[in-house]
């Protein structure tokens, strides 16, 4: 059989930027247009947060833990966005027939993934802020912010690493079929557990927490908790500076990984002709 010809894509910074904006646009604007989604995106995590807050109250936990739960509940929105809005997205685009159009268009697939990531990040940040606001008011959470800029920097670095991970996963998930749905579904409770969404990861013990640090939210959230809660540093896993260094390494690794896997996925898809194949 004749080997397929691999065509390199022309690079243009302007086209790259346009693609990023074009893909981010429906994420940001479309998500705001569907108001009922905003309601559910805030209401559902708030129900879970409330349930865990009442568990802590039932067992007489210190109030700091209530704050941990509220922050964890807000950060879950990002993880869900990574799973369903990033990792599974290319698979869904394939199912709906859009992926072939993305590939045929003379733009970079990295730009499409980046647009998805930026759009998802902005839309999800709005929801996460509302969850924190509502949760803090409902449960009277006390904050003691050490430095706004340190918090903002930590948050942004966490997002870069997290969405880099999402970009990488989207290529992997694309090569799966029905397994993609099940894997995304599976990567919820175990990640909630190992990332310490509802308790400090220090509670898991050093080695488990160290292993869990491969998930950017684990270390990112631990660092942010140390920066915003009065007793935060007491519950911290590592020094904030070390956690920031881990996030930098994860960011670089995941973005390079995303680039490599995307190219590998394209090559494989072209060679095996599976790019637009839909297996039910």
């Amino acid at each position, binding site marked *: 059989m004749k080997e397929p010809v691999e065509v390199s894509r022309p690079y243009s910074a302007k086209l790259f930027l346009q693609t990023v904006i074009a893909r981010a646009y429906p994420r940001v604007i479309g998500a705001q247009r569907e108001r009922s989604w905003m309601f559910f995106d805030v209401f*559902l995590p708030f129900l*879970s947060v409330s349930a865990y807050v*009442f568990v802590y109250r039932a067992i*007489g936990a210190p109030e700091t*833990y209530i704050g941990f739960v509220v922050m964890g509940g807000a950060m879950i929105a990002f993880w869900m966005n990574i799973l369903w809005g990033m990792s599974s997205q290319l698979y869904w685009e394939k199912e709906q027939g859009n992926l072939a159009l993305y590939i045929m268009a003379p733009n970079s697939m990295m730009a499409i993934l980046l647009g998805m990531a930026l759009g998802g990040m902005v839309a999800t940040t709005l929801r996460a802020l509302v969850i924190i606001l509502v949760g803090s008011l409902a449960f009277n959470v006390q904050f003691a912010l050490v430095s706004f800029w340190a918090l903002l920097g930590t948050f942004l670095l966490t997002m870069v690493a997290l969405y880099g991970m999402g970009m990488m996963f989207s290529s992997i998930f694309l090569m799966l079929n029905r397994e993609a749905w099940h894997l995304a579904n599976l990567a919820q*409770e175990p990640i*909630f*557990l190992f990332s310490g969404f*509802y308790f400090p990861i220090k*509670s898991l013990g050093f080695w488990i927490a160290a292993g869990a640090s491969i998930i950017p939210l684990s270390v990112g959230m631990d660092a942010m908790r140390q920066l915003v809660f009065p007793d935060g540093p007491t519950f911290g896993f590592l020094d904030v500076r070390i956690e920031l260094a881990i996030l930098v390494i994860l960011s670089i690794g995941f973005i390079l990984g995303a680039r490599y896997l995307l190219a590998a996925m394209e090559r494989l898809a072209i060679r095996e002709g599976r790019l637009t194949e839909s297996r039910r």
Partner: protein
Amino acid sequence: MLGRLRTFRIAAWLGWQIESNWTDPFLFAVYSIVKPVAGAAILVVMYGVITRGDFSSPLFSYIYLGNAFYIYVGAVMAGISWAVIDDREHYKTLKYIYISPVRVPFYLVGRGVARFLTGTISVMITVMAGLLFLNLQLDLGTVNWLMFISALVLGVVMLANLGLLLAGVTLLIAHHFFLIGEAVASALYLFSGAIFPLDVLPDWLRPVGFAIPLTYWLELLRRALVGNVAEAFPTLSNFSNTQLFGILVGLTVGFGLLSTLIFRWCDHQARERGLIDMVTNY
């Protein structure tokens, strides 16, 4: 009646194939076990950190068992209502089911059986893990098995009714089918006292918990399994087991009638408005 049973049986077989044939049996077993065990582990870590590992406390048994049996809520309710989405949006076969000579509610309930089975395995593994590793105060020799099985069966019937109600609503909506099921399950998790005694809720929220059949179902299961430990919590301590069964039967019948009426109305509306073969790609 035989035709309805056949529909139920074939739908259950179909549901099992859809749920399980996407991967090899080992990965499927891992998938079925990891999620609920991880969910339980979150509560175990939360509890262990605060109480410094006092797993022999009655409160731990209360939380752990409530959480374990709550797995059935998601499994049965979502199993039934999700069949509408699967067949309408994904496989695009709901229209063929509707024109075939089957009773749709029996078909949908049958489709929920697969998740009920995987849910049962998850519940058993979660409870066994509690017994083996967490000093869960459950003595299998003192369990009131008759009460346990009666309550379990009654609860599954009640959950199937709620699942049918959700399936009816799902027939009419293009959007939010993920969210409505999840919202109902989360709200029930919060208000039924599944993982904390209802007394912890603010006064003005407690009546919601008392109106939900799940509250009584979980209480009966706990009483059947850990007897006096469960009765020690004040929320429902004034009720005898017979009274709890009476309330649960009453609410199950009430919700059953309501579900039937709502499903019939939604089913009629969906046919009238041409929604049976709707594909939203949403």
